[in-house]
């Protein structure tokens, strides 16, 4: 009846896990209680759970990402604490298998449930607005993707309470992740969490690929797309091409574990290296899936806060495409030490290094965008500067590891761990937080607090160096990754420093949540009236913050890369049409949460081998899709009068903000600051306006 699920699954050997469960279940009950008390369920259901609006979906993605940022970081902090207290003659406070669950959970959550949802969230919020579209191509599919991610995240969460999580590392190397060596349900939870979130990501990839290709506003040719849209386009291509490899690898591994096959077992002719090849055929493009959109964020940020056109746009585009292509040609560098011949190793090593060329071009393009600019050191610009310097160091250690001869020595050591955190933390985390600050006013209508943001930035930056320079040192001292205990007193010294670094990062994360709280408290002071708080250049800044559900009352015409800046220069921004028209928008529907709920139960049932339930859920998903296809009215109409009312209210606010007055003084691309200086606004910093060159 319940497969392998017995009451034993609820007992935990470690008090820490029991404590974590109390916190998790307690928080869950508290939230449910509060929502019931304040009668918010109806509102949540109507406005959020059933919505297909890309902006709200984006917000929910980032909400998921922030939850998993906390959980992933707690895991990281516990790993650091264990290694700082498990030196020579010390016990540490964790058992080895619990330690393994932590480093597995940290990697899995940070990549699949923090970085990916955060990126997809930013794409959801920004891309339809940047390309002048009213929604993505497949709004319902978008909602399904979101809730599948939530379902997969819920599987990770529930593994804490019922059973356990995987101990096989975030990459789940076979044969260790096979049934012989990992008989518990941990790996099954890991498989199905990844499988469901992988399907969600694939659907998102298809959705945004089509959206960017088909829904651009008239006049927006490829070479007029904003950089964030460009990099996201490359990312969606990577998603569509690479995720099937992960899906197949995980499916075969699931068969190994539940149907007795021997694809990857290392026995009976099974090939363990096949899994590892397939995993990295997906896994290396995944690195660029995580990093490319964030490069796009940096491009937007640099050009906005330097008040200048982006330098070398075409180079940027070609460099991005080159990185996307090359990302498929380097996967073998994850296992140079497998014992293959030097010809293959050298070829893959050189291919890996070649990626440094387009990446270097991008970095210099950002630097030369700063050249002869007017740089405002708003928070996103600080993140960008921190990124450029820190990421270049990470790139250096990456090129070092790309040399097979050096990799034979440094592979699997903490040097490697330091390297990939050194690219992913600045390359992804810094950029996500920059994008978070940058687009927050667009999504919510008020700006984020600058002071706490700076605290967060310095916490992350200083904490990063204090935490990861020691790992570089430890790698060069010969310490492997993933050690639950060790006897070397020298390592202990550096691991204590690394743990202090984790504490400093913890302050950065605390400051980020304070920033959100303070900004919400003072939201009336920080209202974004004009919808253009930064002197933006692309279309998303031409509409209200937060945008109306239809985004654009009139689909804009694009004449330039910096489409909105072009309008401001030519005094054509904020124009009212002669008359508004009815707008058709997709209706809200509960079908997405139904499908995701069934997917969650399916995953849970498969993990515990409750086959009848798993089968039922699978049929349910198929049935739900079929039932939906009979829906005769998937859309509703927003009447022209309502559109006009909404737009008039926006135009009043724009006038109130003085944006129209400012616009008259904008004469060149990026002249926003001079315009501020020229108009008699209280925010002026100088009285003299200068003519730009």
């Amino acid at each position, binding site marked *: 009846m319940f497969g392998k699920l017995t009451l034993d699954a609820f007992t935990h050997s470690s008090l820490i896990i029991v404590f974590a469960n109390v916190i998790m279940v307690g928080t869950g009950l508290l939230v449910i209680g509060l929502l019931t008390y304040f009668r918010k369920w109806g509102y949540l259901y109507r406005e959020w759970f059933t919505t297909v609006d890309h902006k709200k979906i984006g917000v929910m993605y980032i909400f998921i990402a922030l939850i998993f940022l906390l959980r992933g970081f707690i895991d990281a902090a516990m790993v650091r604490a264990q290694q700082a207290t498990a030196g020579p003659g010390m016990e540490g406070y964790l058992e080895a298998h619990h330690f393994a669950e932590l480093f597995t959970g940290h990697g899995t959550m940070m990549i699949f449930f923090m970085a990916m949802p955060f990126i997809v969230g930013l794409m959801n919020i920004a891309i339809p607005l940047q390309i002048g579209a009213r929604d993505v191509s497949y709004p319902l599919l978008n909602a399904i993707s979101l809730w599948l991610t939530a379902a997969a995240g819920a599987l990770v969460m529930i593994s804490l309470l019922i059973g356990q999580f995987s101990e096989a590392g975030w990459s789940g190397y076979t044969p260790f992740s096979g049934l012989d060596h990992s008989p518990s349900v941990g790996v099954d939870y890991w498989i199905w969490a990844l499988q469901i979130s992988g399907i969600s990501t694939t659907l998102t990839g298809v959705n945004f690929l089509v959206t960017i290709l088909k829904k651009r506003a008239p006049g927006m040719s490829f070479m007029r797309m904003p950089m964030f849209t460009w990099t996201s386009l490359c990312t969606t291509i990577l998603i569509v091409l690479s995720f099937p490899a992960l899906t197949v690898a995980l499916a075969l591994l699931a068969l190994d574990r539940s149907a007795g096959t021997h694809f990857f077992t290392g026995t009976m002719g099974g090939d363990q290296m096949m899994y590892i090849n397939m995993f990295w055929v997906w896994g290396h493009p995944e690195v660029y899936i995580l990093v490319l959109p964030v490069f796009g964020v940096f491009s937007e940020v640099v050009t906005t806060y330097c008040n200048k056109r982006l330098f070398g746009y075409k180079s940027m585009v070609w460099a991005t495409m080159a990185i996307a292509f090359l990302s498929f040609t380097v996967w073998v560098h994850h296992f140079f030490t497998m014992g293959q011949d030097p010809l293959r190793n050298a070829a893959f090593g*050189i291919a890996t290094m070649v990626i440094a060329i387009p990446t270097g071009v991008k970095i210099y393009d950002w630097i030369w965008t700063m050249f002869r600019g007017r740089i405002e050191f708003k928070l996103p610009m600080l993140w960008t500067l921190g990124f450029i310097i820190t990421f270049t160091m990470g790139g250096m250690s990456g090129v070092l590891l790309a040399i097979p001869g050096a990799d034979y020595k440094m592979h699997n050591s903490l040097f490697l761990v330091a390297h990939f955190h050194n690219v992913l933390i600045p390359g992804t985390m810094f950029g996500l937080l920059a994008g978070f600050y940058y687009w927050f006013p667009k999504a919510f209508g008020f700006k984020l607090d600058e002071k706490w943001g700076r605290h967060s930035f310095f916490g992350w930056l200083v904490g990063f160096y204090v935490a990861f320079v020691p790992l570089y040192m430890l790698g060069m001292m010969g310490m492997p990754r993933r050690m639950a205990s060790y006897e070397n007193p020298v390592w202990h010294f550096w691991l204590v420093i690394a743990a202090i670094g984790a504490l400093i990062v913890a302050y950065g994360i605390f400051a980020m949540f304070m920033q959100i709280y303070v900004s919400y408290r003072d939201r009336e002071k920080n209202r974004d009236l004009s919808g253009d708080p930064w002197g933006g250049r692309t279309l998303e800044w031409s509409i209200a913050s937060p945008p109306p559900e239809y985004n654009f009352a009139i689909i804009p015409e694009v004449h330039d890369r910096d489409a909105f800046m072009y309008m401001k220069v030519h005094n054509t921004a904020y124009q009212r049409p002669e008359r508004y028209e009815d707008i058709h928008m997709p209706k809200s529907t509960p079908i997405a949460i139904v499908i995701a709920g069934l997917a969650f139960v399916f995953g849970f049932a498969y993990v515990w081998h409750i086959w009848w339930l798993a089968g039922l859920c699978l049929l349910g998903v198929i049935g739900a899709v079929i039932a939906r296809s009979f829906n005769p009215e998937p859309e509703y109409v927003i009447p022209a009068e309502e559109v006009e009312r909404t737009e008039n209210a926006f135009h009043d606010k724009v006038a109130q903000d003085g944006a129209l007055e400012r616009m008259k003084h904008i004469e060149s691309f990026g002249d926003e600051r001079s315009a501020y200086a020229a108009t008699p606004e209280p925010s002026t910093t100088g009285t003299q306006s200068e003519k730009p060159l």
Partner: protein
Amino acid sequence: MSIQTSGNTIRRLRLPLIVLLTLMLAGCSAQWFVDTFYLNELVTFFTAGPVAAYQRNVMLFTFTVMLFVLVPVVGFTLWFAWHYRASNRHNTYTANWYHSGLLEAFLWGGPTVIIVILAVLTWVSTFDLDPYKPLESENPTIEVQAIAMDWKWLFIYPDYNIAVVNEIALPVDTPLQIDLTSASVMNAFMIPRLGSQIMAMSGMRTRLHLMATEKGEYFGKNYQYSGDGFAGMNFQVHAVKPDAFDQWIEQARAASKPLDIAAYRELVKPSKNVDPIYYSSVRDGLFDYVIKRFQEGDGSVPPPDRLTDR
């Protein structure tokens, strides 16, 4: 503005900072740095064999070349960020400038030159450092067969017909040819001060050549996470003079038990933090037999009375 405030803060603190830094530098010699940060423990740079020394040189060379990337990036970033700050109203400001063919040629060309240099280095060093390539020496190569288990290493010296758990001895200036396989999950064999690591995988044979040129005691480890006992899966490496090596072999030969099928079946069971065990002799062909058991079966070795194929 906040930028100006922070500028003022820096200006106010400048003198005390300089004094403090000078005092710090005067107070601590190079030796102080070495002692405080354990720099003499950087095994990557303090090598004891030709493979590791080659790798160290590759890394130092690459690091030097990469400085030509890092220094300009950091320099330009800080310089431009400071110089073109918005509060500095006396700078040239070119909002519309976004393209320069010459500059972009340099931006593509510069990294390309550096990568070409490093690509040549990669090509040459990868072939030189191929773990399968025998090392040159006047002394004849000693063969070792290593089997990774949960969670210890078994080393078989077929030429001497002995086996040892979690301990390796090798005469200095004598190449070691190590054949690797696993009786469990994937492992990686590594002696940091001697050089390369190579994975050990069940049902497969990989090979690694190492040599010690300096006498000493080194640590070796499994580098690939393999489960609960991973952290304790260490082995001691004795790089010794030839006569001391012979003594070590004799010591193993004098051990009380041989490594026969029964002993192997006992040894292969999971165990943690295992101290060295010596075996006076080894069943002939054990290493190949273990590989074959994984290729054709589930990897388990049947009890001696039910052995049919040998």
